[in-house]
């Protein structure tokens, strides 16, 4: 894997770009080709790709990355309110603000490692969340969430002579409305840029140093490397990705709420990353897309259409089946998510990418027959980690 040549990276990048940009085409048979969902694929894919730069490369498990996502959203909405409805200043501002916050949080949290680091990041995220709901209400608008209003200043738009409309203005890219398909393509392009940067980081000396830290941090210090700034930069960069993802959420739907910062949201990005494959390039995006896709499907079900699904069963069994299935769908989607979390960690710590690799081995027949059945058992999972 480490010896992948530059050429194969370009092929990977080209393949990824084509796959993302052509999503409206190949997702159509799955009924997932509408802009709102595809935007979410791109946004959460970006979030997970950024998270993976920290967790995947250094092994530091942050449980507070949703805070940067939320901060990014707030910054973007403020840019829409005060400066302009153009999305470029908004995402730039978000990335900078998230980066500054990540610097502050990372500077303190990275003084510790392991579970202490996780708890410190969690504590910071919870503080941000609690404050956003209480004293910071002037900035965050508390429970209602930060929204656009007609009376917003929008200084730059004013100078540029953009007419004030009677209805709320739309987010735009130099006049192009950022909702619907254009919104998706914008997110997709940002995702592709983010993916490109992630490839470069993975293959760079910086990325190799981060892998060294994950592998043996003490040794890095005795090799003459100051691990603190390496970790801090990884933390800041992944925080900026989260801020960018938060900005894109605001771009496609200009409002921001504190619930985006809750620690369950931080847990979700962890799940996306491990489900896809920690430390792999494409994995985090796959994990994010997988979760958002099934969230969409599962959430849509309710007891009525469940009854239809299980219509073929005898009455008594149908009722039971509907009841059991009802646990997992609709608002029970989170239960499915929790189950997915456990199943992934127990049986497939390498995530989807590992699964694909094993499947590949199986197909090409390289795997020995006696090994194949054990592939999913927890005992190999134990050895694996």
């Amino acid at each position, binding site marked *: 894997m480490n010896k992948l040549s530059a050429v194969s990276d370009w092929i990977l990048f080209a393949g990824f770009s084509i796959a993302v940009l052509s999503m409206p085409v190949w997702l159509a048979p799955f009924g997932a080709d509408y802009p709102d969902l595809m935007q979410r694929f791109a946004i959460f894919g970006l979030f997970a790709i950024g998270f993976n730069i920290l967790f995947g490369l250094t092994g530091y498990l942050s449980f507070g990355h949703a805070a940067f996502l939320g901060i990014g959203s707030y910054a973007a909405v403020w840019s829409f309110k005060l400066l302009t409805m153009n999305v470029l200043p908004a995402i730039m501002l978000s990335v900078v603000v998230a980066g500054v916050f990540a610097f502050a949080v990372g500077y303190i949290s990275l003084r510790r490692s392991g579970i202490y680091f996780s708890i410190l990041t969690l504590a910071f995220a919870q503080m941000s969340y609690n404050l956003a709901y209480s004293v910071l209400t002037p900035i965050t608008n508390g429970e209602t969430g930060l929204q656009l209003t007609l009376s917003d200043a929008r200084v730059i738009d004013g100078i540029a002579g953009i007419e004030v409309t009677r209805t709320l203005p739309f987010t735009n890219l130099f006049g192009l409305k950022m909702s619907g398909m254009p919104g998706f393509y914008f997110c997709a392009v940002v995702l592709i840029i983010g993916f490109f940067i992630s490839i470069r980081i993975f293959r760079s000396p910086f990325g190799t140093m981060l892998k060294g830290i994950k592998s043996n941090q003490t040794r890095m210090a005795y090799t003459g490397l*100051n691990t603190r700034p390496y970790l801090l930069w990884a933390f800041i960069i992944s925080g900026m990705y989260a801020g960018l993802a938060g900005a894109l959420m605001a771009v496609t739907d200009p409002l921001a709420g504190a619930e985006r910062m809750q620690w369950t949201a931080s847990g979700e990005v962890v799940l996306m990353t491990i489900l896809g494959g920690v430390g792999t390039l494409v994995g985090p995006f796959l994990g994010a897309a997988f979760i958002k896709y099934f969230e969409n499907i599962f959430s849509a079900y309710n007891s009525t259409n469940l009854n239809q699904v299980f219509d073929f069963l005898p009455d008594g069994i149908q009722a039971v089946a509907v009841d059991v299935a009802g646990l997992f769908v609709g608002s029970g989607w989170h239960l499915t998510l929790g189950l997915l979390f456990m199943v992934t960690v127990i049986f497939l710590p390498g995530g989807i990418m590992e699964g694909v690799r094993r499947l590949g081995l199986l197909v090409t027949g390289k795997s020995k027959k006696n090994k194949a059945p054990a592939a999913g058992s927890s005992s190999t999972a134990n050895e694996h980690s």
Partner: protein
Amino acid sequence: MENTVLHVADVHKSFAGLHALSDIDLSVREGETHAIIGPNGAGKSTLLNVCIGRLRPDSGHVIFDGENLTGKQPHEINQLGVVRVFQTPEIFPELSLLENVMIPILAKRDGAFKLRWFKRFSSEKGVQAQAEEVLTDLGLGTLIGSEAGSLSRGDKRRLELAMGLAQKPRLLLLDEPTAGMARHDTNATIELLKKIKAGGMTKVIIEHDMHVVFSLADRITVLAGGRIICQGTPEEVKADPRVKEAYLGEEQV
């Protein structure tokens, strides 16, 4: 009189009232191979740890080339050119041998931190060539692409030595470089260290194996009970009755 490179001046270190090191005064001259020997628990490892910044002495100083090492971070000490090779192989098991050796070379070239996230690691052809050369020198040339964790224990130790040598250190600290090695591996390592010696690198070796010590060392310091009991050339040390006593004492225990 040759230049003194490392000067351990009047170092004391105690753990919970137990004197691990007392009155340690020791000079290592440029280009020499200096062995530190002594029975188990004599304080050899503690002394080495004080030298590389892992432990802080209670009093006294460790001066390297005019710089006080006491209280410096491990990476700062390494950047000054003091490199330690550990007893238990400390490597990067998930990375390839090549990467394992390229990292220290980059650390020496670029300093303790450099944010280079856009350039490709594999485009560092000069560094790669250097790393390959060192690996080949140590007989690991055929394995450069494999994962370091998959190596045998002996090869891991050789890899670690390669990581240390790749930095072309001004002072190399070796912690029992042959411990746990089979006889022929030990001999190969001795030959290798002799070769380095010919290159003029200053070395401090902690060693248990007298065979190794007497085939390599220019001067020897004998520790016992946290104190230096004898210092001199191999011949002088061999002749010193206190050394025999210290080692005999150990055997009785």
